């Protein structure tokens, strides 16, 4: 589904990603872990098409297409979804109105008919249950004055509504207490299927107790320096990142 090949990216002249290789297949959950500043969020941003990053080398192929050629909205239409680490507050636009525009533009791009008001509301009610989100929250301005947990829940709710093929969760656990974490993880797990895949970017192993990864990759200084199964995450939780740094330094 996704193939990242020798990806180099920089922002404002500073190299952040220095040769990422990663392959993600349908049905898989990949965790990207790593110390602060290793390039985790940059990778997530580059996948979603954030424009301030410059691609210096390498390629990203998604479902046979050159992902880097697509505008952010085209990526969304193709099924890429980024759950933001810091969801943006948008005053004056209700979550419901925003999502209706997003869902219908995405549906039209995918060759489906736009949903009318009734079917949209029905769809929304179903997906609300998944993340246990309140109707009152959705009629408020998008993310404005939401708590950290509410914002993250809203991200997963949007994900449920947009039915992505490839979801990228950028530090979705940051700022969440354990109950909110469970709800969010539960939502992600319910959306998991044989035809879609997830990349979970996280600093801590904690989230991976609830969203169990098939593969764990350690990103350090802009490269994937170690890959393994879920036991690697536990090892990192136990021993921290220093031993990885030492291993890299020894090379």
């Amino acid at each position: 589904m996704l193939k990242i090949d020798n990806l180099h990216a920089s922002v404002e002249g500073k190299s952040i990603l220095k040769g990422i290789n990663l392959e993600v297949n349908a049905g898989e959950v990949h965790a990207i872990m790593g110390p602060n500043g290793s390039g985790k969020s940059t990778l997530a941003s580059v996948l979603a098409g954030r424009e301030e990053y410059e691609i210096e080398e390498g390629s990203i192929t998604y479902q046979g297409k050159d992902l880097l050629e697509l505008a952010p909205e085209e990526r969304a239409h193709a099924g890429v979804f980024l759950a933001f680490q810091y969801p943006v507050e948008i005053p004056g636009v209700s979550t419901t109105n925003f999502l209706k525009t997003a869902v219908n533009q995405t549906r039209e791009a995918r060759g489906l008919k736009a949903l009318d008001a009734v079917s949209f509301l029905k769809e929304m009610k179903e997906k609300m249950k998944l993340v246990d989100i309140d109707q009152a929250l959705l009629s408020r301005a998008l993310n404005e004055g939401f708590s950290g947990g509410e914002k993250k829940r809203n991200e997963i709710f949007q994900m449920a509504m947009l039915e992505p093929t490839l979801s990228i969760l950028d530090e979705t656990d940051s700022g969440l207490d354990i109950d909110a974490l469970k709800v969010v993880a539960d939502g992600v797990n319910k959306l998991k299927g044989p035809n879609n895949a997830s990349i979970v970017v996280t600093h801590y192993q904690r989230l991976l107790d609830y969203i169990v990864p098939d593969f764990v990759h350690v990103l350090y200084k802009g490269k994937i320096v170690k890959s393994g199964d879920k036991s690697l995450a536990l090892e990192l939780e136990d021993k921290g990142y220093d031993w990885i740094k030492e291993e890299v330094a020894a090379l």
Partner: protein
Amino acid sequence: MSEVLTTEDQLLAGFEGWLNQHFEASSSLKTIKKAGAENFKKLGLPARKSEAYKYTPITKVIEKNFDLKISESPSSLTKSDCESKFYADEDANHLVFINGIFVEDYSKIISASSELTIKVLDDQAINEHSELKSNLGQVNGSQVDPFAALNLAYFNQGVFIRAEKNTDNKNTYIYQFIDGTEQTVLFPRVFVYGATGSRTKIYEKTFISGKENSLNISIVESMVESNAEVRYTKLQNYTNSAYSIEGIYAHQDKDSRFYTNTFSFKGAVVRNNIYINIDAENCEGHMNGLYQLSGKTHVDTNTSVDHLKPHSYSNELYKGILDENSRAVFNGKIYVRPDAQKTNAFQSNNNILLSDTATINTKPQLEIWADDVQCSHGCTTGQMDEEAIFYLRSRGIEKTNAKALLLNAFANEALSEMQNELVKEEVEAIILNKLK
């Protein structure tokens, strides 16, 4: 050798003759109008360095674009031409002004005079209504602005609107038609008197059919008696040859409410002077506005709310979206006088610049002499929030739609006090259309 005439002299050159032609020697209005001309002479047009017109060199603009001859412009508009522009609000009053003159015959007035009096502002009205006679040209500092003085001198057949005690009145629409084959200078004048406990809602809109330059010098004066409410909304979607200097002067008595909404979209140079005088307790004064400009349109908003007595509230919100080479000026003054304890006064002006060549000059001004008050003001100017655009795009919303969604939400905040759905829908449609 010919004497060099000042611009003020040129503007008043035909005044005496015009006055004698239109008014009898015994006319009360004639005396008032003479005083207006004298006052204009005394005040003079704003000087080059005038603080009040700092970013809008209005005198230069007038000198450059007008031949300064003031004469009544004939119009070929028919009654049905005018009626075709009326809002689809059957149960309402529709008032027609052509080139600044209230045309009663073309208007549709359905309110009973026991509720809402609507009549030509002339000698008869002045003689019948002492509240008009003693306040015309005097409401809240209108005598210190040269354009208000010039309007007082030259207005002919304005409209007098009086809401009787404890009446909740139907909507009143005022349509200003500016029509002529030559340069048009017009002086519309509206006087609104809200008697105790009454409610009045007025919506003003302008249609410009001529191609030549027009100079609209318009004045609205309003006296809002105790526990009365007056709402005055203006929709300013003019043309590139329209120059407009407009004043709204309101005086509030106790427990009264005054609301203004101003929506400006197009014009050559538009200046709005909006001054509210809160001279009693428990009043509410609201000023809301949006200027969404492009091309070379220049809109200058100059507001003031003067709190003279305690326990009142004022709120002011102006939003601006500026594209291309447009320019906006905002100056908002709040005065809280020594007696006005427990005043709550808020002001906010937020602007988004969509191009590098658009300009905003914004200046909030608070002068507070009382010590137990809650006041705040703030102005922001910036570009569109790129992070917000990316967020929307990442959800599948196309770039131009994402921008329109954000700007529309930004602009719509200025519509929060609009109750008239017809006018509101029209304003919303103009906003959206301009975002395309």
